C-alpha cells in the first residue's frame, strides 16, 4: 500500500498546480467566463500543449496511458481554480467513450483532434425524465437506409453548446430502462434536425438542451456494437464520477483555505473570529469532511479498473461522501464568512456553488446511496433502495 505520488505524477501535479496558480486567478477566471462558450480557448490550447488532454488515453491512441490517479491530479488542481474548460465533458466522458467503443478509424478521426485541442466533444446522455440514470433512454435510433434516424431530447448536456461533435445515447432496441439496446452515435450539431439551446449553469459552467428531430446519421456514426453500449457507458460514468470527486476535493481545499484565512483575519469583538471555539470546531468539522472526501476521491480513482460491480459500488460510495461533505463545506464556508460569503465578488461563494452543484452532476448522494445499497444484490438496480431509517441521521449536516 502506498499513497504517495511517483515522480511523474509529482511532476504532473506541479505543472498543473502552477498553471492554475499563475494563470487562473479568480479575476482572470471572470474574463474566461465571458468568452464564447463560457471558457478560454487559449487555455484549452495550453492544456493541449501541456499534454493534459492526452493523459487518460492509451498510447496507441496518442495518449499517455494515464489512469485514475493522473486524472485525479489534474481535476483536483482544476477544482482549486474552479476551472471552466470542458475537461470532464470532452476528455473524461466523451473522449473516454470514443476510446472504449470506437473502431480504430473512429478513434483516429475523433481523438486526434480532441487531444490536439482542435475539437471538442460532449456526451449527451441525460434525458428530461431520466434524472440521474444514464440507462433511462427514450431517444430512438431507427434504421434508415444504411444509417439511422435519431429522435429525442437530451437534457442538461454539459458543454453541449460549444462542442463540435455530440455523442448521443439512443435506443436501438428495448424499453426505456433496459440495459440492452443502448447505442451511441456521433452527431454534428450543425446537421439539419439538431437543435441546441445553450445556457449558463449556476455553478459557472455551460450546458445545453439538445433536440433531435429525425436526424439522419450514417452507419459509421455509430460507436461500438448496436445496442451494446451499456458497459462502456457505465465505465465512463464511473470515470466521470471519479474525476468529479477529485475536482470537489480541490474546491473543498480552496474553500477551507479561504475560510481558515478569514477566521484568522476577520476581527469582531476585539479578536479574530477564529478565537471563538464554536467556529474552531466548525472549521475542524469542515477539515474532517475534506479529509474524508479526499480519501474517497483516492478510492474512486484507484477503483476504475476493478470488475464493474465492485467498481460501481465504490464509485457510488465515493459520490455519496463527496456530495454530503461538499455541501457541508460549502454551506459552512459561506456561514463563516458572514455577509461576505453571500457576495458574488468573493471566490468562496463560487466555490460553494460548484461544490453544491457537483452533487447534481452524474448522480447525487441519494441516487448513489440507492445504487450502493442495491449493490449487494445480484445486479445494480437503482430502484432497489435502502429503508429510510438506515440513513436518516445524515439528513441534516453534522455540526450545525
Amino acid at each position, binding site marked *: 500500500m502506498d499513497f504517495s505520488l511517483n515522480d511523474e505524477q509529482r511532476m504532473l501535479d506541479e505543472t498543473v498546480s502552477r498553471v492554475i496558480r499563475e494563470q487562473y486567478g479568480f479575476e482572470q477566471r471572470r474574463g474566461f467566463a465571458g468568452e464564447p462558450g463560457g471558457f478560454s480557448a487559449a487555455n484549452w490550447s495550453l492544456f493541449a500543449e501541456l499534454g493534459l488532454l492526452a493523459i487518460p488515453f492509451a498510447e496507441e491512441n496518442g495518449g499517455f496511458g494515464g489512469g485514475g490517479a493522473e486524472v485525479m491530479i489534474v481535476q483536483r488542481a482544476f477544482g482549486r481554480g474552479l476551472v471552466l474548460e470542458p475537461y470532464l465533458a470532452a476528455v473524461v466522458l466523451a473522449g473516454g467513450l470514443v476510446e472504449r467503443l470506437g473502431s480504430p478509424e473512429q478513434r483516429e478521426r475523433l481523438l486526434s483532434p480532441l487531444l490536439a485541442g482542435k475539437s471538442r466533444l460532449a456526451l449527451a446522455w441525460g434525458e428530461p425524465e431520466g*434524472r440521474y440514470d444514464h440507462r433511462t433512454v427514450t431517444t430512438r435510433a431507427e434504421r434508415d437506409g444504411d444509417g439511422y434516424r435519431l429522435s429525442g431530447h437530451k437534457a442538461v448536456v454539459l458543454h453541449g453548446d460549444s462542442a463540435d461533435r455530440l455523442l448521443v445515447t439512443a435506443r436501438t432496441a428495448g424499453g426505456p430502462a433496459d440495459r440492452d439496446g443502448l447505442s451511441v452515435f456521433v452527431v454534428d450539431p450543425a446537421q439539419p434536425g439538431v437543435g441546441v439551446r445553450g445556457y449558463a449553469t449556476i455553478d459557472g459552467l455551460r450546458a445545453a*438542451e439538445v433536440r433531435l428531430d429525425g436526424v439522419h446519421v450514417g452507419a459509421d456514426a455509430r460507436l461500438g456494437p448496436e445496442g451494446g453500449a451499456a458497459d462502456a457507458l457505465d465505465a465512463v460514468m464511473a470515470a466521470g464520477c471519479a474525476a468529479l470527486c477529485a475536482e470537489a476535493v480541490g474546491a473543498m481545499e480552496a474553500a477551507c483555505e479561504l475560510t481558515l484565512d478569514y477566521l484568522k483575519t476577520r476581527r469582531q469583538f476585539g479578536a479574530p473570529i477564529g478565537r471563538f471555539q464554536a467556529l474552531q470546531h466548525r472549521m475542524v468539522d469542515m477539515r474532517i469532511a475534506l479529509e474524508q472526501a479526499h480519501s474517497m476521491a483516492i478510492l474512486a480513482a484507484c477503483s476504475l479498473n476493478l470488475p464493474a460491480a465492485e467498481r460501481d459500488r465504490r464509485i457510488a460510495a465515493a459520490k455519496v461522501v463527496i456530495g454530503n461533505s461538499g455541501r457541508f463545506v460549502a454551506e459552512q464556508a459561506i456561514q463563516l464568512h458572514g455577509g461576505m460569503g453571500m457576495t458574488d465578488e468573493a471566490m468562496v461563494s463560487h466555490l460553494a456553488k460548484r461544490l453544491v452543484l457537483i452533487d447534481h452532476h452524474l448522480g447525487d448522494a441519494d441516487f448513489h446511496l440507492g445504487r450502493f445499497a442495491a449493490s449487494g444484490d445480484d445486479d445494480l438496480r437503482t430502484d432497489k*433502495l435502502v429503508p429510510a431509517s438506515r440513513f436518516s441521521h445524515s439528513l441534516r449536516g453534522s455540526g450545525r
Partner: protein
Amino acid sequence: MDITYTAEECAFRDEVRRFLRSRLPADIASKVREGKRITREDYVRWQSILAEQGWFAVHWPKQYGGTGWTPIQRHIFDEEYAAAHAPYLVPFGVSMVGPVIIKFGTEEQKQRYLPRILSQEDWWCQGYSEPGAGSDLASVKTRAVRDGDHYIVNGQKTWTTLGQYANMMFCLARTDPAAKQQEGISFLLIDMNTPGVTVRPIITLDGAHEVNEVFLDDVRVPVENRVGDEGKGWTCAKFLLTYERTGIAGVGHAKQALAHLKDVAQRQTANGRPLSEDPVFRARIAEVEVDLMALEMTNLRVISAAQNGGVPGAESSMLKVRGTEIRQAISDLLRRAVGPYALPFLPEALEGGWDGAPVGPAHAAPLSAQYFNRRKLSIYGGSNEIQKNIIAKMILGL
C-alpha cells in the same frame, strides 16, 4: 392543557383567508409562487392594499393605526399570509423603525413618520451593519458630529437590504467616541436624498441585487431626526432586535415552502415513478415536516406565553435558529428534488413578465438560486452562532 384554536380564532382565520383570496393581486401571488423577483412597485401596491384594510401595521397599537391583534391572531395571520403566496413584508419601516418611533420618538416624529409608513410614502432601510461591525454591532464607527442644530455624519454602512428603493434610513452612528462602546451611539433618521449619501449595489451569489453599500460623506442630519437621547441609540437598537420576535420562526413561510416541496416532488420523476414515491426522498420530506411540527408547537408555546403577558426573551433565539435551519433544509430539498435541472441558471427567467420557454420544468427555474439566497437566513438578523451565544448566556447561564 388545550392545543386547539378557539372558535373566535378559527373565525378570524376564515376572515383573513377571505381577505387574502379577494384582495391579494393574482399577478403578485403568482410571482411569489413561481419564485420570481418582486419589484418595488409590487411591494408598494400590495402593502397599500394591506394598509387600506388596516392590516399593514399588524404589530402597532391601535391608536397609531395598528390592528391590536393578539399574538395568536398575528400568528394565524402570518400563516395564512404565507400560504396565500403574499410577498415577504418589507420590515424596515413597519416592523423596525415604526415600533422604535412609537416607543422612543417625540410626538412630532410620530406624527411625521408613522402615517408615511402606513401610506407607503417612505421606504425605510436599516443602516446598522458596517464593514467592521457585523456581529459586533456595538463597534460601529460611523461618526455623527454635532454642528449647531445638525449632525455631520461620515462613515459607511453595508448589507443595506433594498436600500436602492429607500428614501429613508435609520442608522446607528457614534456621537461620543470617548464613551464606552454601546454608550456613545445615537439613533438617527437620515433622508437618503441628502447630499453626501451614495448607494452602491452589492450583487449576491444568486445574481440578485438585494443589498447595498451606503456611503455617508459629510451628510447633514437635523438634530430633530435623532430618536431617543444622544448616546442612547443602543437602547433603541436593542429594543428593535427583541421587539415582537414571536414571528421570527417563520413557521408560515416554512409551511408554504414544505407544501411547495411536496408539489414539486409529485411532479418530478425518479426511476419511472413520481419522486414523491421514492422512499429515500419521502423520508427526507417526512423528517423536515416532523421538525417543522416541533417548531410550530414550540412557537405556539412562546406565543401563548406572550398572549398571557410574558415577554419572549432568549426563546426567540431558539425560534430563529430552528426556523432558519428548517427553511434552509426545505430549500435544500427543493433544489435536490429537480435533479439535473437544478443546474440551468437563466436570471431573466426570474423576472416577472418573462415569457421565454423555460429550460426543463418551469418550477425548477428559481430553486438553486433560492437555495443559495436562503443561506442568508442563518447570517442576518443576528447570526445563528450569535443566537446560540445568547441562549448559552441567557437561558443556560453559561
